[in-house]
């Protein structure tokens, strides 16, 4: 799938930012003492650096520079896991997290759902996507339908593939557990935000004999998924999944920008540790630059 991009990425945001500031400051300037929040300058600098890194690598990627990504076993296993389900004649269960669509983890889960739905559509494997929020239902249905149309299997799309099961966390878990024990899906994929029901789902899936791939940004749920699932994506690997599965250079460029930022954070942490340990005044000043916004 090709994404068409225009070269407005750099110019339009800057222009609108200036316009917003101009409107805020010039029209009603007398009523507000200070428009800009000085205590958030450090966040602004971080945001500018981060955006520049992501956009720079995106641009390089579009220019065709090769970008290396390390292997993520969980994502490589997705197609194989769906193939297993096809061979066994059993469905694939995909849960895009249990949080609402305004959470970035859920959006990441929905993005991965689109990729998985393409694979299941191609192999004609039944797919079941239980969701906990109505907005996620709407987004999930759209994504799965588009996936089926993209691989030319639009007629095979069943509207009830994505279904709202319950709004309450444990009612959702109970419903999904019941489905797992009755239908025995061959593959369970959990991608998104999960809470206490993560172990309930993963253990039941394990008992049902499913191969399980999980990914979440919640560090407190990772131990449960690691214990009960065959593959686990940790933290940022979930957000990288969409780019990783698509292999599109433009999206992979974003990942490289993110890595550059991580390197910068590591350098700052080391610098901070050294300055705070071996100096007093400079260390205090350095620490004050990172005061919470």
């Amino acid at each position, binding site marked *: 799938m090709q994404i068409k991009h225009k070269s407005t990425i750099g110019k339009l945001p800057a222009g609108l930012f200036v316009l917003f500031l101009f409107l805020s400051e010039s029209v009603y300037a007398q009523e507000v003492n200070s428009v800009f929040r000085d205590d958030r300058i450090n966040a602004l600098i971080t945001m500018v650096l981060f955006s520049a890194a992501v956009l720079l690598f995106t641009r390089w990627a579009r220019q065709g520079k090769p970008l290396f990504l390390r292997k993520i076993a969980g994502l490589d296993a997705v197609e194989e896991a769906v193939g297993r389900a096809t061979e066994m004649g059993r469905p694939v269960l995909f849960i895009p997290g249990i949080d609402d669509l305004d959470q970035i983890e859920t959006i990441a889960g929905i993005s991965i759902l689109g990729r998985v739905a393409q694979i299941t559509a191609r192999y004609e494997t039944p797919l079941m996507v239980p969701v906990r929020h109505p907005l996620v239902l709407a987004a999930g249905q759209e994504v799965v339908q588009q996936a089926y149309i993209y691989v030319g299997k639009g007629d095979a799309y069943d509207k009830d593939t994505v279904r709202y099961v319950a709004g309450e966390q444990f009612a959702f878990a109970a419903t999904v557990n019941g489905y797992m024990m009755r239908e025995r899906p061959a593959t369970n994929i959990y991608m998104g935000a999960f809470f206490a029901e993560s172990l309930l789902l993963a253990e039941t899936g394990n008992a049902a004999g499913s191969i399980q791939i999980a990914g979440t940004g919640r560090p407190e749920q990772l131990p449960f998924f690691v214990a009960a699932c065959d593959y686990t994506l940790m933290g940022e690997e979930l957000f990288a999944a*969409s780019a990783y599965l698509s292999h599109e250079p433009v999206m992979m460029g974003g990942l490289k920008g993110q890595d550059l930022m991580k390197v910068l954070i590591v350098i700052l942490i080391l610098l901070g540790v050294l300055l705070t340990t071996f100096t007093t005044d400079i260390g205090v000043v350095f620490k004050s630059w990172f005061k919470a916004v």
Partner: protein
Amino acid sequence: MRTTAPVIAAFVTGLAMTVAFFLNEKTPFVGEISNQLLDWLIIIGGFTLLLGVVSILRVSWQSVERRKEGWIYKVALIVSLLAMAIPISRSPLFGRFEGSIYDWLFMNLQAPMMATMFATLAFYIASAAYRAFRARTPEATLLLLTAILVMFWRVPIGEAILNQLPGDFPYFINKFVMNGANTAVQRGIIIGAALGAAAMSLRIILGIERTYMGKG
């Protein structure tokens, strides 16, 4: 238009909220846009609840109509859903406060069921721990030993036993395991996840990432 309009909406609203973060809340125009968008989010959220109710009723009714396996449970679901939709007034019986039918159903049926499901986690944790904690590799052995020490530390009698051993084990676990290694790992994962989320948000705002719409 079907693709472009959502991308433009995401871009404009994302930019407005980002700019508003760096400006004084009482800033006219930008501050007002930001507050309006937050209010809209609350209103839209209320309407989307209807979407979920319609979906669940439709799927359940289809199962009942076609007498699919387990259709009787779908009848129970529909009846329960309608029963919990009772609160329509501020009356003591048909409202939603203490003493009403809704409150009784919630506190005596739903709340215990929710607590029961959460309680089953204890059983699942026991079976998962029994299956997963095997000293197959040096790293797994370290994990196993740390887990046992922390499990001892978290309960009174376990802490009392640790206190009998030479050295201050509870202090060691609190300082070096919970506040040391655990905190470092949690921070690492939180920072990584936050950067990943920020990068994804940036891609969505700029329209690079459109997979959540089913496009791209």
